């Protein structure tokens, strides 16, 4: 029953196919060349951009929702970094404040100061006279009138002891308390420790929120991609019949998901900069009213890069899951 037709000399001649097409045809499942690999990915990337551009409003809404979801952890992270900066600045002020007995005479004060300086672990000691203390009190907002009302200076001599490197403020405070003439030793370790714990808690909250909102963004992207896949069923069916593998069919959707993620992250970064620019001046004014030299730091480049990478990865994974499940579901139908 088999017959073979001869090819006539005057046959209609089709142009010869390009070499890579022959390779694709003959190799079947053979590994594609690097050029083919790039060509496929370029085409998929272009298709993803075209798809987003074709649905401008829908894509913009998706990007905004994803951007808002990613902005919250980014802003919280920024806030925690700034709080840590406040804590860090205070931590540098490790001086231990020593209040001497107010009844000490000048000779007693000198003797106590010498004894304090001789304590093991004291790197430096600064004196503050009762007069200087009163002057500082007058400088504090709201204390001017109170200082003026005093008929005598009730403030004691104060010594500010700076610990040597490797000696904690708490250790030094314990040693200084034992010196004669010392009335009170004040060290702020407890509240700094509390601040550290609060910062630790806030960091953990940021991590949990980032995880939850990242998952939310991923599900948003997955849903957007699922709808794209459903809307393009006919196209997918045609591409599949023409020899498009599952990977080929999925590829534009994966780029689409990554694009959603990157654009959402870019929007989140823009929002964090906007919040920074809006709050910078009021925060500086508030700090100045407390005589503090604190300035809000700008969003970090590392956090921005991390947000972009996380957006791309979340988008890619969301799209992979959605496209795979939808294709399987369509195939089952």
């Amino acid at each position, binding site marked *: *029953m088999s017959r073979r037709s001869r090819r006539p000399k005057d046959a209609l001649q089709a142009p010869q196919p390009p070499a890579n097409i022959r390779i694709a045809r003959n190799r079947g499942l053979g590994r594609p060349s690097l050029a083919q*690999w790039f060509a496929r990915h370029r085409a998929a990337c272009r298709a993803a951009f075209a798809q987003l551009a074709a649905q401008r409003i829908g894509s913009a809404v998706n990007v905004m929702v994803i951007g808002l979801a990613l902005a919250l952890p980014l802003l919280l992270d920024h806030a925690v970094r700034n709080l840590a900066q406040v804590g860090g600045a205070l931590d540098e002020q490790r001086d231990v404040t020593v209040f001497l007995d107010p009844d000490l005479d000048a000779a007693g004060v000198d003797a106590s100061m010498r004894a304090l300086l001789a304590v093991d672990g004291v790197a430096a000691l600064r004196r503050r006279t009762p007069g200087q203390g009163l002057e500082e009190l007058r400088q504090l907002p709201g204390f001017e009138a109170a200082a003026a009302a005093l008929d005598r200076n009730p403030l004691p001599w104060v010594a500010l002891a700076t610990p040597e490197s490797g000696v904690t403020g708490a250790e030094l405070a314990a040693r200084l308390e034992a010196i004669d003439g010392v009335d009170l030793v004040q060290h702020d370790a407890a509240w700094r420790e509390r601040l550290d714990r609060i910062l630790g808690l806030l960091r953990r909250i940021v991590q949990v929120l980032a995880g939850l909102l990242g998952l939310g963004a991923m599900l948003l992207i997955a849903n957007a991609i699922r709808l794209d896949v459903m809307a393009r069923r006919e196209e997918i069916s045609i591409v599949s019949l023409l020899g498009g593998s599952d990977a080929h069919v999925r590829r534009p959707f994966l780029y689409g998901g990554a694009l959603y993620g990157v654009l959402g992250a870019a929007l989140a970064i823009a929002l964090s900069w906007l919040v920074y620019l809006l709050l910078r001046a009021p925060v500086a004014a508030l700090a100045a009213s407390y005589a503090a030299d604190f300035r809000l730091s700008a969003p970090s480049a590392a956090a921005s890069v991390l947000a972009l990478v996380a957006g791309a990865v979340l988008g890619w994974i969301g799209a992979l899951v959605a496209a795979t499940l939808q294709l399987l579901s369509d195939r089952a139908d």
Partner: protein
Amino acid sequence: MIRFDGVGKRYANGGDALTELSFEIGTGEMVFVTGHSGAGKSTLIKLLALIERPTRGQIAVDGDALANTRGARIAAYRQRLGLVFQDYRLLEDRSVAANVALPLQIAGCDQTELQKRVRAALDLVGLGGRERARPSMLSGGEQQRVGIARAIVARPALIVADEPTGNLDPQLASEIMQLFVALAHTGSTILVASHDLHLIQRMKRRVLVLDKGRLIDDFRPGKGA
């Protein structure tokens, strides 16, 4: 090139679409498959395109048993086919050139070569200069020519057409069939399913006649059945 050996296909509803179908088609041969509606023509095409699987028998293409072609191998196999559909199956939101370019994009063809090949395929089917048109701007015959250009653009070893003239008037149908005959001279193996026996007989090519899923005739018009 193509070998059907005792192939049967029974659908889930219990109906036999094909029964004990056996034939061979040689490389470079052009064959028409005809029969009434429900004779099994489309099922035969679906089996060849791996849209359906036979419930009995073996199909081999180029010596490879299609039963072993599964998973990712299906896509690789389909890249070796050129499929033409009755309803054209063109992407309405893409230009003629973009539709024709699809198999080349799937194969990972570079852009320069792709454009050259698309122009050549469109010239071959008489649609040179219509690259930018949308399918909706074309007549039925022109849309089918785009479908044929898409089927041949990657120079497949096997072209399979399912009722390619089913939606066309007699004049256009004749032109499309002539185009397939012309393509047969390029060396590709061509299998065309059509219910229009009178049109097929004018082409003077081998004809397989199906009836209720069985092969009832295998002849070449003008050389005696």
